[in-house]
């Protein structure tokens, strides 16, 4: 299921124990972002850089009259992205009345996972990374990293 320029909230799954995730890639990694807070998925936008802000903040943009803060996720995770910020797509999430645009290389599909599908983040991963992940979902071809967006947005 391709979701580009899709707007509005994803409907929560009818089964409350299941959680929906939107998958996105940055560099060689694939991440999963919970859809419950996602309000929009954006094509590449013009992002205005703000002086003095920490580097994980890419800048701001105006989405239909609302101010959105763009987050450079690849910087926050310290991974190399394949494309420059101005060509990155965005997953917009809403937290406490503020909108954040998580910049990713690409978004692909919405998947549904049960808590049992998610394993704990292995211990040998850097602590800084571990904090940003909620766990790992093992897929046949690759590993899906469940992103803890609360932590990414933490100051």
């Amino acid at each position, binding site marked *: 299921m391709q979701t580009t320029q899709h707007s509005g909230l994803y409907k929560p799954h009818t089964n409350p124990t299941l959680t929906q995730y939107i998958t996105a890639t940055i560099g060689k990694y694939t991440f999963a972002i919970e859809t419950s807070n996602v309000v929009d998925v954006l094509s590449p936008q013009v992002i205005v850089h703000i002086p003095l802000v*920490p580097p994980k903040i890419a800048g701001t943009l105006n989405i239909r009259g609302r101010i959105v803060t763009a987050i450079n996720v690849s910087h926050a995770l310290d991974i190399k992205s394949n494309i420059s910020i101005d060509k990155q797509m965005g997953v917009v999430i809403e937290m406490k009345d503020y909108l954040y645009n998580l910049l990713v290389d690409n978004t692909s599909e919405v998947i549904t996972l049960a808590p049992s599908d998610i394993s704990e983040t292995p211990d040998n991963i850097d602590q800084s990374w571990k904090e940003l992940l909620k766990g790992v979902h093992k897929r046949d071809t690759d590993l899906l990293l469940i992103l803890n967006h609360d932590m990414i947005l933490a100051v």
Partner: protein
Amino acid sequence: MDELLNTFITEANEGISVLDSDIVLLEKNPEDSKLLGNIFRVMHTLKGTCGFLGLPRLESIAHASESVLGLIREGEMSINENVISLILKSIDIIKDIVAYVEENSTEPEGEDSVLIGQLEDLVNGISTSSNNEEEIELVEEMKEGVEVKTKKVKKSTKTSKESKEKSTKKSQSSKNTENKEKAKSNNEKQLSPSITNGENTDYAPTTSGPTKTNQTIRVNVEVLEDLMQMVSELVLTRNQLLQMIRSIENTPFHAPFQRLNHITSELQETVMKARMQPVYTAWVAFPRITRDLSVELNKKIDLKMSGEDTELDKQLLECIKDPLTHMVRNAIDHGIESPEERVKNGKPKTGTIHLNAYHQGGHIIIEISDDGKGISGDFIAKKALEKELVTPTELAQMNDSQIINLIFLPGFSTAEKVTNISGRGVGMDVVKTNIEKISGTIELFSTYGKGSKFLIKIPLTLAIMPVLTVSVDTHVFAIPQVNVVEMIKINPHKKEQTYQVEYIHGHPVVRLREQLLPLIYLSEILNINNHDSEDKKVLHVVICEVGGYVFGIIVDKIHDTEEIVVKPVSPIMKDVTAYSGITILGDGSVIMILDIGVLLKHIHNIARQSTQDYSLTYDTIENSVKIPLLLFTSISGASCAVPLELVSRLEELDLSKIEYASGEPVLQYRDRLIRICTLSDDEELPTEGQHNFLVFTNRDKVLGIGVKHINDIVKHEVNIRKINDNNGFLGSIVINNKVHDIIDVNSYFIQTFELFEEELRRHDLVIENKNVMFIDDSPLFREFIPPVIENDGYNVEIMNNALEALDYLAKDNNYQNISAIVTDINMPEMDGYEFINICQNREEYKNIPIVVLSSQAETKNKANKIIQPDLLAGYVLKTNHNELLEILHDNIV
């Protein structure tokens, strides 16, 4: 009609209508304590408001009824028909009087002693049932009365409808209505004569015209706020459209857009108006507060108000209410003196507090002024130091206005003793924070002995804020208009330019109408790479003001003024303090709003200056002191100045004779060695030829500072503008329209003779921890001489004048810790002679050695004539540091 009275009538009508039904209910359910509480509260409020508004008749009835209700509430009186009737009766009279007040703005003539008497009798436990007949009669009347009232209410609604309809038609018909009404009221009067027991009923219970309740509806503020928010967004969208449509020619959208534009503006105005209330609503409690407090404090205070009908956004009013109350209380408590004190100081017995509100340039200005004792800058400074809110260095760099405004610092409370009225130490900083929360500013002006004035500047509305948009490189920022004073353009290509950027130790400044303003490059503060060479570029400077400080922000471009809706910055950016908010401009771009206060803090380390005029008490004295200054050009070409008195000689020395002693350059001159130095390390002396030197002596050490030219000697006022603590310079001064750096001679001695100072300290350990008091009214010498004394190992207590010195000596037995006093002679208020006399005549001070310091040699004889010479430890010229130190040494060790 009076706005306040209007509100009262609306509220009273609401309250009374509830009372009527509630009391009847109460009669049926006497046990319902909640209901009773309700009734009591309404009556109580009514009483309170009436008392406040000066409606004695209403107040006395309400009071009597309240007493009865109070007893019932406390269970000391049971509810019976008699009681209820009496209360209902009083409600009816209240209702009638309120109606009369509504029409005539005053209470009707008459008095209600009988009713009140009956109510009081109830309270006093005298059973009115002894008069059975009367009671029954009353009850009957009451019942009748209630009936009549119900009818009346119905009637009145009807009438008001009628009259409304009719008033739109012809005046004649409305006359008819009036007549009809009169007839009705006459009718009522006949029906209820015994209610007032035949007392003066010389007023007609008014039913004419629509009641106030019909004209206003109460809307939840939230609804208004939502409405305002939406209108703000609409305005922004309109602005956006406006920009788009402007760029298209001959579009059919033009006409409808014009209309949309117009309607939006009107809508915005109307919605704003709906939220507007006269500023008086925030002041309403002040007459009462003033009265009560002045009685409590035995002061006589007249509260004057002007501009009370100036309208202000309701939300803003709420925000300023508490700060204003606090300031009024402060003015009463600390500002106005007691009548005796006032008379003693030649002021009228009655103090005046003046509240004033007016519009000024899109803002509302509220002034609170009093003619009380004012605030002493010295006192504030002392207090701030005591509480360690500022460092002495910071303090030394402040002017009086800045010092007085220190009272806004957190933790500052000047109240000597904490009273229950004000002075819990949370005061003024909370006031300031609250006002700044609504983008307002507060400033304090005070003249010691004359009074104080607070000036509060607040925006008309919070929702929409006018800003100036500027840009650096590709970044656009908004500067709140409230901070912007003016804008100037600096064009280095133009020959005859008005302004130019000058540098003092690498820090840019600009001269603007005789004021020296610090400048900051916005690009520098925000870390934006600015590729263009700054020397050649046309610079735009936005002159901003925050709390009395004025400075300039250098930007690449100044765009436009725009009205914006401020949105909060996302919490993820909360560590970046440079921005106070974020907004979307008309063209859809997102820009940051600069927090000018924070930018100022960046400057604080560089400079502390302001355009505040030096008109307050202390500085006027300063202005009269002119000191001869030697003006010269440094080797690097900078204009510098040094007080002439400090210079021993001007010499032209042969550079080829420079020798080196332990690697340091020295010159032999008249059998002495002169150490040679330059003003800064990057200056270099030529290797040969004659060169100009300023020669200074300190004890046995002689220092020559190489300079390019000696220019002039001028007598000039010494308002130094302190720049920073850079070694070598005290600050700068504007002479003949040119900025001159004042060199700090002492620091060169320390630099050059570093070893010497170290040695000296080692030798004179014995004098460490000895305190020397230094008194001089001239800030320049307060800068120069204490370091000289300190370098010898003493601690120096610096006093600005003799009175301060006496205060200090007397306080906490400080005199015991003072080993010597060094004082100036020519000082305002109390001169050195008088000070010495006082000291000599006081047993406890008499043993402290006093050294007189003066700039005039001839006064030495005079001093000897006035003061017995043997009483003095010494008499020294200000320039002769050597002798001063020797005398101190001899007298202390």
